[in-house]
């Protein structure tokens, strides 16, 4: 939710602190800030607060509570006007399913002038990344961003009248029914998408809670409006937006289930703003409210419980102050607080919710760090240690542990929605991946293993067979030391590893910092030479390294024997670049240089 600091300031008499301080206030007491840019903060409103905080009013209220600054006035606390129906027949609303549309308020406004918005409105919208369209559309967007209620205005002249009355319908789409939206795209609909229709003709005029249709679009000629402030079901709206791949500011808000009570506040706000900047007169307001919101139930929490959950030592006054700052109506009797949440705070339902309000507003930095109490029993790590003991045994036998992907080309268990269409199943065995890893390990062996050593791999991982999953241990070859009967695979889910591991302490390793390895091919070369007896091999190694330069990534001495007062040495050199593929010619040159250096030192290169 993008908010403008200037807009937030309209809620306070006291000047707000700078953007940094506001950002910190939100971050440590409410929500993370995704982005800061001049006057704009992008606030990552948490899912449980998206019903009341996807708007400037909600975020101003939070900020006021955090900074302990009173709000000038709260639009949701100002008593609502009584609306005139404008005569029983000027506008009718028909809702097909009250589970999918709890409330629909429609207002008939006559005599407006659709014009560009005044500067303050255009600037306010542009400050939060919105585009200004015209005064009426901007008014609906402004009020939505101000109090959180999505709103829409239709051109009444484009709707039909029956016996002098306009009729708005809310119903599910028919299979194959089509609608063209305001931005000009045409969508073919399915029956799980809710529509707003001109009920007199049954033609769709909007995707309910998502976007308006072009059929009743406002133009410069528009004079009469039907203004909508409704409450559409969260799941229905979200699924429809998903099916149409059309996520809008309105659908985002509805999918977070704002209270249907909010619709009336949105309507009041938008009618006041439209008549102020576009003129016209409100002829009547219809309020079809079949699924009335139940008032939130009072929630109680004791001071003892608050401190007992947080591990804090907050006083009654400190806690009371939190509820005051949040403007939550409360009573306190014998250190038990009973809060009656206002309609928009749909998130406050259990005592722990109130504990959270206290913790975050006072600040989690005021919660101490306490050591866990000692336990009388010893922790059970036997099975884990059994598995780790198996791994340690294998490492001792020269095996390298790998970890591979659980997805496979084929298997007994298939994914309904694979990420990679070529890997739609779950592995039934580690064998395939391990063989693949071994092939690559053989290639990479000269880089990481000494000459003469061959890679032996193992993996411990879950495999998924028809009869269920189990943890498999698989090796690329047998361990002769384990006896004739030991194969290359073991089912660790059935193996009795608890006794095997109970007393075992897994080996521990300290790793150094990660060193990136090259993705380019390497070249291996051997060099053998005679040196005088008693030659210091360290010096010999230095000759090679100095001449080989930075391209030498590994150097192993793999042979040495004495004969007739001389020593024969053989070294393997591995060359690789971080930036490119090396050529044989350049390595031939390097090797010639090394040979030259060794000869210069009096050795006889063989």
């Amino acid at each position: 939710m993008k908010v403008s600091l200037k807009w937030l300031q309209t809620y306070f008499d006291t000047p707000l602190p700078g953007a940094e301080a506001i950002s910190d206030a939100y971050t440590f007491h409410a929500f993370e800030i995704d982005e800061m840019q001049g006057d704009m903060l992008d606030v990552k409103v948490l899912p449980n607060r998206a019903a009341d905080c996807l708007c400037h009013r909600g975020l101003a209220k939070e900020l006021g509570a955090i900074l302990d600054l009173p709000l000038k006035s709260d639009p949701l606390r100002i008593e609502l006007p009584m609306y005139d129906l404008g005569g029983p027949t000027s506008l009718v609303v028909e809702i097909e399913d009250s589970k999918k549309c709890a409330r629909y308020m429609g207002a008939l406004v006559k005599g407006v002038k659709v014009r560009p918005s005044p500067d303050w409105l255009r600037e306010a919208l542009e400050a939060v990344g919105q585009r200004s369209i015209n005064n009426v559309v901007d008014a609906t967007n402004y009020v939505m961003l101000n109090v959180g209620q999505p709103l829409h205005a239709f051109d009444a002249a484009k709707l039909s009248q029956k016996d002098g009355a306009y009729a708005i319908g809310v119903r599910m789409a028919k299979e194959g029914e089509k609608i063209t939206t305001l931005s000009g795209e045409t969508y073919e609909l399915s029956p799980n998408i809710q529509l707003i229709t001109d009920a007199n003709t049954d033609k769709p005029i909007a995707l309910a809670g998502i976007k308006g249709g072009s059929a009743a679009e406002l133009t410069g000629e528009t004079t009469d409006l039907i203004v909508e402030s409704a409450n559409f079901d969260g799941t229905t709206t979200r699924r429809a937006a998903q099916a149409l791949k059309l996520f809008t500011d309105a659908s985002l808000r509805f999918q977070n289930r704002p209270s249907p009570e909010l619709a009336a506040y949105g309507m009041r706000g938008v009618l006041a703003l439209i008549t102020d900047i576009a003129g016209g007169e409100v002829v009547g307001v219809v309020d079809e409210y079949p699924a009335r919101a139940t008032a939130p139930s009072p929630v109680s929490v004791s001071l003892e419980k608050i401190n007992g959950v947080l591990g804090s030592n907050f006083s009654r006054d400190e806690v009371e102050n939190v509820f005051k700052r949040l403007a939550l109506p409360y009573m306190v009797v014998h250190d038990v607080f009973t809060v009656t949440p206002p309609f928009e705070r749909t998130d406050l339902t259990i005592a722990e919710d109130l504990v959270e309000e206290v913790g975050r507003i006072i600040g989690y930095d005021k919660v101490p760090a306490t050591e866990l109490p000692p336990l009388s029993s010893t922790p059970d790590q036997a099975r884990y240690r059994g598995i780790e003991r198996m791994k340690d045994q294998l490492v001792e036998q020269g095996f390298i542990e790998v970890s591979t992907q659980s997805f496979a080309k084929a298997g007994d268990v298939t994914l309904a929605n694979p990420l990679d269409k070529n890997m739609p199943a779950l592995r039934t065995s580690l064998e395939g991946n391990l063989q693949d890893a071994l092939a690559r390990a053989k290639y990479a062996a000269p880089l990481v293993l000494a000459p003469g050593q061959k890679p032996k791999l193992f993996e411990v991982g879950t495999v998924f067979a028809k009869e269920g999953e189990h943890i498999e241990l698989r090796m690329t070859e047998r361990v002769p030391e384990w006896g004739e009967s030991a194969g290359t695979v073991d089912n660790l889910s059935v193996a009795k590893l608890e006794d095997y591991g109970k007393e075992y302490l897994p080996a521990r390793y300290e790793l150094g910092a990660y060193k990136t390895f090259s993705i380019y091919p390497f070249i291996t070369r051997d060099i053998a030479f005679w040196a005088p007896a008693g030659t210091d091999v360290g010096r010999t190694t230095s000759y090679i390294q100095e001449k080989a330069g930075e391209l030498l990534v590994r150097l192993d001495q793999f042979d040495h024997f004495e004969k007739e007062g001389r020593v024969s040495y053989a070294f393997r050199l591995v060359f690789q670049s971080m930036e490119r593929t090396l050529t044989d010619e350049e390595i031939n040159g390097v090797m010639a240089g090394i040979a030259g250096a060794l000869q210069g030192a009096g050795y006889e290169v063989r």
Partner: protein
Amino acid sequence: MNQQGRLHPITIAIRDIADIFGRMGFGIAYGPELEDDWHNFTALNVPDDHPARDMQDTFWIKDQPGKVLRTHTSPVQIRYMEEQMKKGIKPPYRIIVPGKVFRNEATDSTHEAQFFQVEGLVVGEDITLAHLKGTFSQFFKEYFGPDIKTRFRPSFFPFTEPSVEVDVWFEKEQKWLELGGAGMVHPKVLENAGVDSKKYQGFAFGPGLERIVMIKYGIPDARLFHSGDIRFNYAFGEEKI
């Protein structure tokens, strides 16, 4: 020369973590990777119409409705508590659960469709958010070094209330890094596992393991971990302790 093999860095990290938490009294528990809807979502207080339940971030199993690849290690909280209660063993409970989890997300250098989490669960009569702070800060100090600092920020998860995000301060880099979510176990979660939420309370956490290991050793790409490439094992100096 005797050929010495090498463990995978994830194994080495889990051993470090198991050791630190072991000294704080934590056992180690396991659970299935192919989970049912109850343990992965419902019992954890994830509402029926939560977006995670759509075909979005979750891998669903063909012809097995209600089966998913677990999206987190949290279902093992439920399984562990269910099992203990069935055996008649009441809290205190203290476990960590290192395990693979799956998310149906495009992969990049910081996201993999499969990765490890280390779940933690502590339940007792008087376990508090302050204990969570004490436990986490001890863990991070031992794992990353004594000059780190830990802080909590407000967050939201259906299975914890209050919920927090945990940041760790790295003196060398001079910055705070987000290391995972945590919170006080939601009373509904305890009840769903058969534990009396009037008598017991606790905390849970579930940081991603690769992220912790990447930060500790400066590994640039999460995709290296489960590539089956032995060069990854050898990209670190290694010393047996």
